[in-house]
Every structure is written in C-alpha cells, then in structure tokens.
C-alpha cells in the first residue's frame, strides 16, 4: 500500500469541505475520484500534498510514513508526491523552460533531470518549441501540457492530477492520457480527479465517487461505469 | 498649602528633530530641580510648588496645537514654553494668544510666531538681526566681497536667515555680490552638486546657516571638492555635536550664536558643566535657550508680585510682567523686551578652536 488516507477532514473557515474521507492506493495503480462541482475533490488532493491544513483525527500515510509530519515542499522533494493543481497555476513570469527547471529545485540527480526533460519534450513537443516563451502567454492547452510536464519533473512516486483534461482539444487530450499511461507504466502511481467521468474511469483501474465531502461509492472502473447511479449522475444519462 | 504653578513644555520629543525635544526637556527638568531645591517659587512672599506638564508634539503642527490646547484648557498651565520649531510654534502661538496664555518659544525665529500676538514671546534673536551681523563680520574680518550661500529651502529657519544674509551682503557689496545662492532639501546628505557650483562661482566665503548634522556633511564635502576658503555659520551650529560629527574639518571656522561654550564663565559655564555631567554631552543652543526661557518665565512670575489664584488674571499679569523685563542676564546673552515679544539681545561670534572648542571671538549687538 502506497498511500492510505483515513478519516480525512478539512474545512475552510468554518465551512466543512470533507467529512472523514478514507481510501487507499497501491503502488502502480491508477485511481480516479469523480464527483460533482464542489464535492471536495480538489480539497482531497490539496490535503494530501499538505497545501491546506487538516483537522484533528485525520491520518495519512505514504509508504508507511506519516504524511502529516511533512511540510509541503518535503512532500514533493522527499516523498516524491507531485501535484498538478486545479487551474494549472503556472509561473507566468517564467519561461517554459524555467518552469520545468524550477520543478527540479530539490532534486540532486543532475543527469536524470536531463533525461526527464527530454522525456517531457518528447511527450509534448509543443513545449520544446516554445521553451523560451513566457508561460503566461501560452494558450490554455499549452499551459495544461506544461503543468503536467512540470509535475513530471518534480516528483515521480505518485502524481496527483486535478482535472488534467480541462480545456484540452480532443486529440491532445488523448495524447495526454496516453502519456500519463506511459508514465504510469514506468512506475508512477496516479491519482486523478476528473469531471469527465467516463474518460477518467476508462483510464483508471479503480474509482471513488465523492459527494458533498463524503465517499459514497467505490470499486473497479468497469463496475462503476455500469452502475446506474453513476451513469445517471456523472456519465450523462 | 499654596496652589501648584504649572508650566507647560511643548516639545518635539519625537518626529523629525528629537534632539531638539530632548534638549528642551532636559533643560526644563534641570530648572525644575533648582526650583524644587529652593522649596518652590517665591512669589509675593509665598512659596508655590511647581509642576511641569511636558507634552510631545511629534514635530507636527496639529499635534503641537492639540498639545497646547490641552495644557492650556485642561491642565491649566500658567505659562507655556515651546514649541521650538516655527512649524509648530506659529500655530501653537495662535492658540496661546487666543486663550490669553503667555507662551515663550526659546528657538523659533519666524517673525510670524510673535507678530500681532501680545501673549507670545521668544528667547532668541530674529533672523533680520543675525543676517546683517554676519554680513558685517565677514566684511570687516576678511574684507571679502563675494559670498556664497548654501541653505535648506524646505526649512524656514535656514531659508529666512539665508535671505536676510543675502540682503545684508548685497547691501554692503552691491547686487550680484552673492555669487552663488544654492539650496537643498531637508534630510539631504549629498551636496556635491551645489558645492561644485559654489566652488566654481568665485566666492570667497561660504555661508551656511544649517543645523549641526548638515554642517558636518557640508564642510567635509566642501573640503573633498577642493574648497579651502572659510565657511561661516549661524547659531544653529551651536551644538557640541557640530564638532563631534564634523571633526577636524570644522576647526577654525566661525559662526554667530547666542553663547560660546568654551571659555564661558559664570552662569553659562555652570549650566554647561551641570548639563554635561548629567547627560554626557555639552548642551546645544536649544537647551541653553530653553534654560533662559525658563528663567524668564520664573522672573516674570516673580515680578507679578503675587498670584491671585485666578488663572486668567495671573496669566495676564505674567504676560505684562514678561513684557517689562529689561536687561535680563541670560546665559545666552542679555535680553530686553521692549513692548513686543521679541527680545533685543546681542550675538557673539564664535571660532571653533584647534582643539574643537567654541571660543569667544567677538560680540555684536543691535
């Protein structure tokens, strides 16, 4: 078991966003979380990468280590958890290349960094074309590529992806998912949050359904894809 | 038990010129010690205890006005001493005059402070007096005909004095004889551009009516830019810190002031020694003037011949007593108030000796 989350509770200024969410992820899996707007999906990811404080009673372990002991930067640099945040959050004032390089801030393995860079530009050739453009002036989809590429550079144990398909053209979306699959086959576990539930479930092996801050369903993708409840609420009829 | 006499001290303890406030406060407290030692102020055969009401005016006009109003209407002071700087003293003087409370500013040289204000006095001489004194001194002493002036435009004291000096000098040597008339702004520390101009203007002497901290910088920079001619200053140089900040660069320079610390005798010396012992440095002119102002206040109160207990009447009496003071021997010179609030008093020309002391050089009276 790679990541285990038990009784995750989070609130934003008195508004409870998560009321005790528990789930587990094994090494090498692709797991997705689906749910409506405001269900708490992004909040879950933020809690795992320690960007927001959790409430008492929460237990999270990663590779057997207590996640709550780590500050956010160590979560990335020491545990290898990378996070593609909602809305991309690139550094608009840095160039594409600088954004990628910055993601390797805490890495010491110089040679591997070079290789990973090559890998990113082979997955997203557009990025290497634009490597000296400021990230802020990229088109929406290009930014999304950069966000994924950046996460790829920073930590490789597990990637937390918050709506990676948002704003991507169909062709590109497929290629991004293909690349994610490839990254996964190379050994990176993936936890993906998606609105586009069908797409996500087809991609993942397992899924969880989050509603109003609580997990209401879980199971293998095939099972969820045919679940009438899921079908009705998240797959568009 | 007689009622307490309250004296208000309206001082610049914080803000731009905390040093001024500090000198004011220390001098006033020393005076209070003396009074206490004497068992109070003896007026009309009775001894009255004295209390100081010290307020900080933060070097701000509105704060000075508030402080003045407070001490006059709330604390019921008999006399107010301060504020020192004209920026504060002019509006505070208006308040004092309105409430018919005597006020004496030790240091404010702006004519507006006392103008048309029967209740407002000052302990220093005015710019229209000091300017000509210096112009005459330089002319007689060095036989120069071309002078340069460097002053702070944003500060009314230096600006006023610079103007009067210029007028006096041009009166002596004809228009255009002030060959460079340069300025800077408060808190500037670099004067190289102005000094370069002055250097190249053919001036024979530089007059700079600035405060001691600026004096140090001006003199040093002038020398670094190759100026070797005399530099002359005004009473604002009269601080022990002038020499401690300026060092050897200032040796041999002249300035006009109220009193000369080195070689001082009598009361002046006693005051200086006592102050230095207590606070660790030679008092500057503010402290000395404040001391004189306190003594003037004391004399005026004593001269009333007795307090009625009615604050309004007493204030009136103190005012007229103060207006009558003649030939008062202060440590900064002899003062006479002839009707108005401005004393006529003599200036002394001081030379900074080769040991860095202020030596009496010459005296000049109106």
């Amino acid at each position, binding site marked *: 078991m790679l990541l285990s989350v038990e009784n995750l509770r989070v609130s934003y200024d008195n508004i409870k966003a998560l009321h005790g969410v528990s789930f587990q992820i094994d090494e090498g899996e692709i797991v997705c979380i689906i749910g409506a707007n405001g269900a708490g999906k992004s909040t879950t990811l933020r809690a795992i990468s320690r960007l927001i404080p959790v409430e008492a009673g929460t237990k999270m372990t990663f590779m057997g280590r207590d996640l709550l002991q780590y500050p956010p930067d160590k979560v990335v640099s020491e545990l290898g958890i990378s996070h593609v945040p909602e809305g991309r959050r690139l550094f608009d004032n840095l160039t594409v290349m600088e954004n990628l390089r910055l993601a390797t801030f805490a890495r010491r393995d110089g040679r591997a960094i070079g290789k990973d860079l090559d890998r990113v530009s082979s997955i997203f050739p557009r990025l290497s074309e634009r490597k000296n453009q400021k990230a802020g002036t990229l088109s929406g989809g290009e930014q999304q590529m950069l966000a994924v590429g950046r996460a790829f550079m920073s930590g490789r144990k597990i990637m937390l992806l918050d709506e990676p398909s948002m704003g991507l053209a169909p062709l590109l979306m497929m290629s991004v998912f293909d690349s994610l699959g490839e990254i996964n086959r190379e050994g990176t576990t993936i936890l993906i949050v998606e609105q586009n539930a069908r797409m996500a479930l087809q991609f993942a092996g397992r899924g969880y359904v989050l509603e109003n801050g609580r997990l209401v369903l879980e199971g293998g993708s095939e099972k969820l894809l045919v679940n009438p409840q899921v079908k009705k609420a998240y797959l568009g009829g | 038990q007689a009622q307490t006499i309250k004296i208000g001290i309206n001082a610049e303890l914080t803000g731009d010129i905390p040093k001024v406030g500090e000198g004011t406060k220390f001098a006033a407290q020393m005076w209070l010690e003396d009074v206490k030692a004497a068992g109070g102020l003896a007026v009309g055969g009775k001894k009255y205890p004295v209390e100081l009401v010290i307020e900080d005016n933060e070097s701000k006009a509105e704060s000075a006005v508030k402080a003045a109003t407070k001490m006059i209407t709330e604390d019921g002071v008999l006399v107010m001493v301060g504020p020192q700087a004209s920026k504060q003293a002019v509006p505070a003087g208006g308040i004092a005059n309105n409430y018919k409370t005597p006020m004496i500013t030790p240091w404010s040289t702006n004519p507006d402070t006392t103008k048309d204000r029967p209740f407002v006095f000052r302990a220093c001489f005015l710019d229209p007096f000091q300017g000509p004194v210096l112009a005459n001194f330089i002319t007689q002493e060095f036989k120069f005909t071309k002078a340069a002036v460097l002053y702070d435009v944003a500060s009314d004291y230096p600006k006023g004095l610079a103007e009067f000096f210029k007028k006096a000098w041009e009166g002596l040597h004809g228009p255009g004889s002030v060959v*460079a008339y340069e300025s800077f702004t408060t808190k500037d520390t670099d004067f190289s551009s102005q000094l370069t101009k002055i250097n190249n203007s053919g001036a024979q002497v530089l007059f700079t009516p600035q405060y001691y901290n600026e004096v140090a910088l001006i003199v040093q920079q002038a020398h670094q830019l190759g100026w070797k001619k005399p530099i002359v200053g005004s009473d604002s140089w009269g601080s022990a810190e002038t020499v401690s900040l300026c060092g050897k660069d200032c040796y041999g320079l002249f300035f006009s002031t109220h009193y000369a610390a080195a070689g001082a005798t009598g009361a002046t010396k006693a005051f200086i020694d006592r102050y230095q012992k207590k606070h660790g440095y030679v008092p500057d002119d503010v402290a000395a003037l404040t001391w004189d102002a306190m003594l003037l206040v004391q004399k005026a109160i004593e001269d009333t011949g007795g307090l009625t207990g009615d604050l309004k009447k007493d204030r009136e009496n103190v005012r007229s007593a103060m207006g009558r003071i003649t030939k008062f021997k202060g440590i900064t010179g002899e003062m006479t108030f002839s009707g108005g609030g401005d004393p006529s008093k003599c200036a002394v020309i001081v030379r900074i000796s080769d040991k860095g002391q202020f030596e009496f050089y010459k005296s000049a009276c109106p």
Partner: protein
Amino acid sequence: MSRPAFVESAGIEPMVIFLQNLVNALQWGSFYALIALGYSMVYSILMLFNFAHGDIFMVGSYIGFGVSMGLIALASSGVVALPNWLILVLTILFSMFLTSFVGMIVERVGYRPLRDAPRASAAITGLMIGIILETGNLALLGARRVSFPSLIETTTYNVSGVFVTNKKIMIVLVSLLLALALHQFVRRTKWGMAMRAMAFDFAVVPLMGVPLNTMAALTFALGSALAAAAGILFGVAYPVLDPYMGIVFGWKAFVAAILGGRGSVMGATLAGFLLGFTEIFVAMIFPSTLRDLIAYSIILLILAIRPHGFFGEPYSARLRL
C-alpha cells in the same frame, strides 16, 4: 536668482565642471542603486513594498557603527593587529551578517503572517515596523546623532581640476559589483528562479519542492544584508547617523526599484543611478531650489512615457494585489 554656475565660472572650463558633477553623480547614484538593490530584492521577489527597508538600512548602519567601534577598540587594545582597511572589510561582513537576522525577524513578524493578505496590508506592516525601528533606536540610544568612525583616511585626488576621493571610487566599485552579483544570482541560479516564481504565485511554489519559508527568509536576509552594506558605505561617505536617516532613502529606493521595472535587479540599479544623476545634474543646470520639483517631474514624465519602468513587464491582470 542664481544663474547656472558655469556661465560665470571664474575661468573654469565647463568641461571640468561637467566632469566633476559626473563624478559626484556616480557616487550619489551608486548609493541609490545600492539601496534600491536591496529593496528590489524583497520587492521584486515577494512583491512587497518593503517600507521597512529604509529603516533596515538605518539599523544596518548603526550595527556597522557598533561593530566598527568594537573592532577599533579591539585593535587599539593591542590584542590583535588590525589595519583599518581590514576593520572596514570585517565591519561590512559582520554587519551584513547581523543585519540579515534583523531582516529575517522582520519577515517572520511582519510579513509571513500576511502572506495571503493584500499586498498593501503588508506594506502597512512594513511602514509600522519601520516606525518601531526608528522609535526603538530613539528610545534606546537617545536623540543624539552618532558619527561614523573614519576607517579609511580620505585621500583627495585632483585630476586636472576634477576632485575625486578614494572613498568615491570604492563606493562606486562596490555597488556595481554587488549589483552584478545579485543580477547573476536572480537570473541564473535556481534560488533566483524560485524567488521569481514566488513573486508570481507563492501558493503553489511548495509543489515544486521549494521550501517557501526558507526562501522568504533568505530573500529578506539578502535584501537586509545589502541594506547593511549600503548603510556602512553611507557611513563612510556621509558619517552622520541618526534614527530617521533611513526614511528618505527608503522612499527613494522605492522609487528607484519600481522605476527600474518590477523584478529587474539591473533595472533597479540603473534607476538608482538615474535618480542620482537627475538630482545632481538638475541642481547643476537649474536653480537648486527647484531641484526636487524638476527631478520628480522627470520621473513622472519617464513613467508617463514608459509606464512599466525600464525593464518591467506590462501589468498583468493576474497579478495579485
């Protein structure tokens, strides 16, 4: 009315006067540059108006005063032989070190709790910290001004009518050197990159494995160390220190840092020099009473023509305020 001095100069060539002013402007400008540098460090990285910077400069220069007095005492007691230049170097290094802690404390107390707040609120805390530093100094040391010890003897060289001192040369060189070093640091190193990233969006910086607090502290430490360096050089050139001396410089550095363009160390340096040059040359050409009026009008004009400073990027809608 005072006419331009060079018109009636007593037989001195206008060229000499111009060169003299050039030398003056170089020194004065390098001060502004040096202070703006430290300011722009914090400003362009954390996007904060660090209104406490001027006062950190003041503290740095007082610390320098203390350290140098200590070293002089040590030297004169004969325990160790310290030549004056070494005392100066040691003073600069020590004070930079000590002042960087002041900066870190300021960051910890005044800025870290306000990281999510509007930038202007942090500006107000900065302003308040500045007041506390000034008043604290006043309460602690009293109102007297102190005179910075003259560590190196002033030597004046007369190069065919133009007067140059060894101090001036040193100051110009040191500030250029520091500017260059800092520019390289911000542009080329990963710390510099992380700092620039923080300028844009600090919330996700930790996702890159960058320790946010450490970086912020480092930024402040560097900025304050630069302020201390500036403070000591200032003490060497203009040896009168008082608790309020930082205010003017703080605001001027603010002007220079922004005039240079957001996020540009080189811009800040350049703008610092420009500011110095403007003040000196305006005073040379025009009556000096009008100096501020004209100098600031020039700045206003520059910004009206180049609304984003020299090297700044246009205002971006996503920048948080």
